[in-house]
């Protein structure tokens, strides 16, 4: 059994909460006491049906306002896979939340109402998922029951979406007609849509091929922590702990440590009390080297002829996440892999309109929930790859040094 993380996008009106409620219910991730609480609340509110959306309503302040303010994580499992859903609200602060939810996702699920067709919001969600390089995309055309399960309605929406995504970077797209309320094509294939030959949503989630999404070629091992027991039993032990970002490491491999550029060979790779023959993403391991080099947190172990670029000039797409706008000359803290530095905003090249994909080069600042292309100068070299090649060594966060808050997310060009 492996793990698939997916992000959902859409508003209550698209039936997103109902769909998630159904996935949880049908995979038995909802317990009787939770269902009873939701049934009771539905009754108190005078609904004549059990509002499955209540299952995913989190905090009281949200329930009172009837909105979702933040990314919520949900869990379910089938015999084939464990799933983690990053459930992001479609309206308030959608960009900040969607970017957060999508940053770790293997798959993005966009919902549309069959009666409405594609909206500005669904296009926006697709743009953000492609910007975050979520490798798999599903468009769920919901409420098919309300359009008499009409193939033409579905085909029109599907065609329009396929055309739209040709302008984006979407390596894998599936379009599924369904009814979350009636359960059509959610877990089992619908009898109402014999014209649809694809799989149900659950079947697709269980079988979508994610094994090839990871880069097994370019070795990137950001050193997180140096393990030095200094005990009698392990007097000379010195290991470099970290999580493999990409590539496969094996004992005996010749490696280079950046930024020093010194080379050595891998003496051994430890996972707790046993040695392993290889390490691959996303394993957390301890790497020992044959030579006694000066390696510390923030360094990167890679191959001699395949290394990231050390640079102090970072060109990236930045999503801005706080009210006070981002402006040139601003100074921020930056965290990239296990390395921290300070960064100066040199230029905002353009602001990307995520509805029209238009580049506004006139802008001098980025506001809350806006995305733009930014150049930064850092106080220390960062060891970077383009985000489209590596989601770990290509991403960073920006931190306001006064408040300590995370204020921006960057994807390196």
């Amino acid at each position: 059994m492996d793990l698939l993380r997916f992000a959902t996008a859409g508003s209550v009106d698209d039936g997103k909460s109902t769909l998630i409620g159904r996935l949880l219910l049908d995979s038995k991730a909802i317990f009787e006491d939770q269902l009873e609480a939701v049934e009771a609340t539905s009754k108190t509110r005078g609904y004549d049906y059990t509002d499955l959306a209540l299952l995913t309503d989190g905090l009281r302040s949200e329930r009172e306002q009837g909105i979702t303010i933040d990314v919520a994580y949900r869990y379910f499992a089938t015999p084939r896979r464990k799933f983690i859903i990053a459930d992001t609200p479609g309206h308030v602060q959608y960009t900040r939340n969607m970017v957060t939810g999508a940053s770790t996702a293997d798959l993005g699920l966009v919902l549309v109402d069959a009666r409405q067709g594609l909206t500005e919001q669904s296009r926006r969600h697709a743009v953000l998922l492609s910007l975050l390089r979520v490798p798999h995309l599903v468009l769920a055309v919901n409420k098919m029951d309300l359009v008499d399960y009409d193939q033409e309605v579905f085909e029109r929406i599907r065609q329009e979406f396929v055309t739209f995504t040709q302008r984006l970077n979407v390596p894998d797209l599936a379009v599924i007609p369904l009814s979350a309320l009636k359960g059509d094509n959610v877990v089992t294939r619908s009898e109402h849509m014999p014209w649809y030959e694809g799989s149900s949503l659950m079947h697709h989630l269980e079988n979508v091929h994610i094994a090839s999404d990871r880069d097994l070629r370019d070795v990137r091992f950001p050193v997180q922590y140096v393990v030095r027991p200094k005990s009698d039993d392990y007097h000379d032990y010195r290991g470099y702990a970290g999580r493999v970002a990409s590539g496969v490491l094996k004992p005996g491999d010749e490696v280079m440590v950046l930024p020093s550029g010194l080379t050595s060979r891998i003496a051994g790779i430890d996972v707790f009390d046993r040695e392993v023959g290889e390490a691959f993403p996303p394993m957390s391991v301890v790497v020992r080297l044959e030579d006694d080099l000066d390696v510390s947190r923030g360094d990167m172990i890679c191959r001699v002829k395949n290394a990231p670029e050390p640079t102090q000039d970072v060109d990236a797409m930045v999503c801005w996440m706080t009210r006070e706008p981002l402006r040139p000359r601003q100074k921020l803290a930056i965290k990239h892999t296990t390395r921290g530095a300070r960064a100066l905003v040199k230029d905002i090249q353009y602001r990307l309109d995520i509805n029209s994909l238009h580049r506004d080069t006139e802008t001098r600042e980025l506001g809350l929930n806006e995305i733009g292309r930014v150049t930064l100068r850092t106080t220390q070299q960062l060891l970077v790859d383009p985000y489209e090649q590596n989601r770990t060594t290509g991403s960073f966060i920006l931190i306001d040094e006064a408040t300590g808050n995370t204020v921006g997310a960057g994807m390196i060009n």
Partner: protein
Amino acid sequence: MQTPADYRLSHLDELESESIHIFREVVAELERPVLMFSGGKDSIVMLRLAEKAFHPARLPFPLLQVDTGLDFPEVLATRDAWVERLGANLVVASVEEAIATGIVVDDGKTSRNRMQTATLLDAIETNGFTAAFGGGRRDEEKARAKERVYSHRDDFGQWDPKNQRPELWSLYNGRLHEGEHMRVFPLSNWTELDIWHYIARERVEIPSIYFAHRRRVFERDGMLLTESPHNPCRDGEVVAERTVRFRTVGDLTLTGCVESAASTLEEIVEEVAVARVTERGATRGDDRFSEAAMEDRKKEGYF
């Protein structure tokens, strides 16, 4: 020739790797971490992951236990066995002592569990801990579903759900001001079933009360509570011996058990897999006070 499919981790290995990454990140970036250890299954899994994260070195932080004076003796025994095996440093913060010194007021109505919060915050402050690992999981309860891995607390130890830092990729932001601290939840993405699968796989010691045993119990508010001088029976409550086990461990006056014959880890996994009621709904009096009970306690600074 190996294919990409050969380089897949199982879901348990992936969760383990993520948690180990979190432990190392905190130790590398925050000055005085501590692990909140209750002796329950979640804190034992945390301890196992911490052991793996720093092997062959010893744990680079102490354990903190809030002693309510109402803990199950079996749980304390397991705690001591773990502390001894790992050579770990244990700090005990006692609710009794906090009452005696006036940090906590026992008005006779507040449960020990709630008084734990004040005791805990005092222990964090007096020891100068800047990061406290907790065993909370997002699947436990609705208010937890939006909790961050790094949960920032102000200088009153409080949680503000509307003012959390966005958390992207696996880039955690550990910045703190003087007096603030971070709660860190390495088990955020684990479910109850994952915890049991992992305990069964790792064969680690857990308190014996998780396994089926004969116990003298009585029924209160639909829960089976253990007979104890700390928890005298009220009118009409009848003590009887039954075969039970606990799904969670906490204050023994509030933690109920369930009738069960599961006496091995495999049998527990099987039972949890088909359970139809959440662990907290079934056996935790402290979470039942109101629909938003957990949300309120978290805001005050609970685990």
